[in-house]
C-alpha cells in the first residue's frame, strides 16, 4: 500500500469485454484510492463503467470480461491475482455489496432471517441459531419495525424501501471494511431514497466501514460523500473533495453533469441534459473522449489523451483546459456561480487556480 490510510488502491485498471462485435474497452486506465472510513462517490452517466469498476473489486466480473492491466490492492495483496476460492472469503466478509433493485435482489423463496444469517454462517462459522439471533440484531439496526415478528417473513411481504434495508442488513452483517453501494436508491422513490441514505450514513458511523457509493445522480452525492470521482467512457476524468467537485469543477463533463442536476437554488428551467451520447467503447476516441459532446473542445482534445492536471492536493482533472497554454474559456453561468461560491468558502486561504483565472 502506498498510503496506510488507504483500504483499497486501484492502479491503471483496464478491463475489456469480449463480444461478437469486438472488444468493448469498458475500463481504460482507471486509478483511485479508497481511504479508511470515507465515502467515495463514483458518478457518471449510465454506461461509463461504474459498475464494472466496482465489480472487479468483488471479483464478480462477467465471464466475457478480461482484466488487461492494473492492480487492485487490498490488505497489501492484489485482488486480481486471487483465486475464486480466496475471493469467496473476501466477498460478503471484507467487501460487501448492495445492488440497485431491492425488488429483485432478495431470494423470493427464502425467509429474510435466513438470508441475513447466511454470510455469518459462511464467514464466521456460526450455527444457524446463533446466526439467526445476530440477523435479528441486524434487522433492528436497519430499522425494521417488529423485527421478531418479521424475521421469518418472505421478501414479498416487504415494501421496496424495507427490502433495501434488508439488503443493507445482509451486506453489513459481517461488519465489512468496504461497502460498495451500486445505485442503491435509484429504484426507490424520493422520500424513501432519503431514508436509505440517512440509514447508510448512520450505519457507516456505527460499523466503521468505507463506502464506495455509485450513482448517476449528483443530487444524492452532496450529503453523502467525502470525495467524488467523475467517470466518463471508462475513465475517471476528475476527482476531488465534494466541495471541489461541486463548487470548483474543471472538466467540461463535470460542468455538464452539474448543469443537468436540479438544485434548490437553480431558479427553475435552466436544467439541461448533456447533448449527444457517450462514445462507442468498441472503438474509443483517441483524445478526450468527451470532446465530441463538449462546447469547449480544442484541436488537441481529438488528438491526445489529456493527463491529470493538479488543481489542489486533493483535486485533479484530466482536461487540456488546465494546460498552461490553453486559451481561457468561460464556463456555463451556473458553473461560474458555483465557483464564486467556492471562492467565498475558501477566502482565508490563498486563491485557487481555476481554468478561468483572470
Amino acid at each position, binding site marked *: 500500500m502506498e498510503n496506510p490510510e488507504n483500504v483499497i488502491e486501484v492502479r491503471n485498471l483496464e478491463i475489456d469485454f469480449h463480444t461478437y462485435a469486438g472488444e468493448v474497452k469498458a475500463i481504460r486506465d482507471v486509478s483511485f484510492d479508497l481511504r479508511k472510513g470515507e465515502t467515495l462517490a463514483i458518478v457518471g452517466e449510465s454506461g461509463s463503467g461504474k459498475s464494472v469498476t466496482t465489480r472487479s473489486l*468483488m471479483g*464478480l466480473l462477467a465471464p466475457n470480461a478480461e482484466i488487461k492491466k492494473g492492480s487492485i490492492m487490498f490488505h497489501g495483496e492484489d485482488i486480481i491475482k486471487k483465486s475464486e476460492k480466496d*475471493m*469467496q*472469503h*473476501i*466477498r*460478503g*466478509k471484507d467487501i*460487501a*455489496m448492495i*445492488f440497485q*433493485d431491492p425488488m*429483485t*435482489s*432478495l*431470494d*423470493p*423463496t*427464502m425467509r429474510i432471517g435466513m438470508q441475513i444469517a*447466511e*454470510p455469518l454462517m*459462511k*464467514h464466521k462459522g456460526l450455527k444457524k441459531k446463533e446466526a439467526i439471533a445476530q440477523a435479528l440484531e441486524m434487522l433492528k439496526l436497519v430499522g425494521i419495525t417488529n423485527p421478531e415478528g418479521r424475521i421469518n417473513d*418472505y421478501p*414479498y411481504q416487504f415494501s421496496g424501501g424495507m427490502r433495501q434495508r434488508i*439488503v443493507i442488513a*445482509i*451486506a453489513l452483517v459481517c461488519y465489512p471494511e468496504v461497502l460498495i453501494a451500486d445505485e442503491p436508491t435509484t429504484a426507490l422513490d424520493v422520500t424513501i431514497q432519503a431514508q436509505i441514505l440517512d440509514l447508510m450514513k448512520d450505519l457507516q458511523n456505527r460499523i466503521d466501514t468505507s463506502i464506495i457509493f455509485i450513482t448517476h445522480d449528483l443530487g444524492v452525492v452532496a450529503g453523502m460523500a467525502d470525495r467524488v470521482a467523475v467517470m466518463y467512457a471508462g475513465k475517471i476524468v476528475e476527482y476531488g473533495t465534494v466541495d471541489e467537485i461541486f463548487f470548483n469543477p474543471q472538466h467540461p463533463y463535470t460542468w455538464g453533469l452539474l448543469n443537468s442536476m436540479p438544485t434548490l437554488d437553480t431558479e427553475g428551467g435552466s436544467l439541461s441534459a448533456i447533448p449527444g451520447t457517450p462514445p462507442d467503447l468498441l472503438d474509443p476516441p483517441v483524445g478526450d473522449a468527451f470532446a465530441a459532446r463538449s462546447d469547449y473542445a480544442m484541436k488537441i482534445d481529438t488528438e491526445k489523451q489529456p493527463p491529470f492536471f493538479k488543481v489542489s492536493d486533493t483535486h485533479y482533472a484530466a482536461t487540456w483546459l488546465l494546460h498552461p497554454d490553453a486559451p481561457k474559456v468561460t464556463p456555463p453561468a451556473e458553473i461560474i456561480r458555483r465557483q464564486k461560491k467556492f471562492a467565498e468558502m475558501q477566502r482565508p486561504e490563498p486563491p485557487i487556480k481555476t481554468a478561468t483565472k483572470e
Partner: protein
Amino acid sequence: MRKYLLKRIFYLFLTLFIVATVTFFLMKLMPGTPLQNEAKLTASEKASILAQYGLDKPVWLQYFIYIGGIFKGSLGLSFQFSDQAVSYLIGSRMGPSMQLGGQALLVGVVLGIILGAIGAIRKDTWADRVATILSILGIAVPSFVLAILLQYYLGLKLGLFPVAGWSGFSYTILPTLALAASPLAETARFIRTDMVDVLSSDYIELAKAKGLSKFGIVYHHALRNSLIPMVTLIGPLAAALMTGSMVVENIFSVPGIGEQFVKSILVNDYPTIMGVTIFYSALLCLLLLLTDIIYGIIDPRIRLSGNGD
C-alpha cells in the same frame, strides 16, 4: 381458497362428464362389434347376446343408461371377461401400473433435474451439449422403440434383466427405464431453461456477493427457485407416462391397466375402454388439481394471493 377449490372440483366433474360422453360416441363410431367369432353365430344368437348387453337399444338410450350407471358408481360390465365389473378389472390391475409409473416418474424427474442443472451450470460447455443431446433423444425416440432396444440388448443379448413378465423388482427395471426416458428429457429441458434464467437473476448475484460457494448458490438458491415452477410439469409428465405405459406394458407383458386397455381395444370391449379412459382422465385431473394446491403451498410468492390476501 375454499371457493376456488369447490370451483375446481366442479370443473373436474364437468371435464369427466365430457370425456365420458365423447368416449361413448367414439366407441359407437369404432368399426367392428364386440362379438367374437361373429361369422359362426346365427342371427337370433346375435340378437340375444346384443340384448344381454343392452346393445339392441337405441344409441341415445344406451348413452343415458351408461351415464346413469356412472353416477351410481358403476362403470359397467366387461364384455371380454363375462360379468366382471370394469371397476374391479381396473382395481386388480392398478398395482403394477402405479408401481411402474411411480418408479419411472421418480427416476425421470431426479435424473432430469440433475441433467438439467448440469446443463445450466455448465452452460455452453461440452457437458451442456451432451445433456442437451440426451434430452432431445429422450423426447424424439418413442418409448416403444426404446423399450424394444432395451429388451433386445439389455434383456436378450446381455441377459442383465428379465425380458418380460412381472414377478419381482428385477422385472420392473427395463420397463421403468423405457418409460422414464420421456419425463427425464422433459424435466432436463425444463430445468435447464429455468435455471439459466434463475442463475442470471439479481438474487443469485447477491448470493455471490455474500461469498457463497458455487455449490452453495446452486443448492440453497438456484435449485429451489427452479424447482418451484417444475411442479406444473408433473401433470403433463403423468399424462405422458399414461400413454407410454400402454405400449411399454404390452411390450414387457406387465399385467397393468395399459396392457388391459390395448387388449380391450382389440376386442371392442366398450365398457372397459370407456372405464379406463374415464379412470385415466380422473387421475390426470386430480393430479393437476393437486399440482395447483402444492404450488400454492410451496411458493411463498403466491401463497397469500390464493387466500385473497
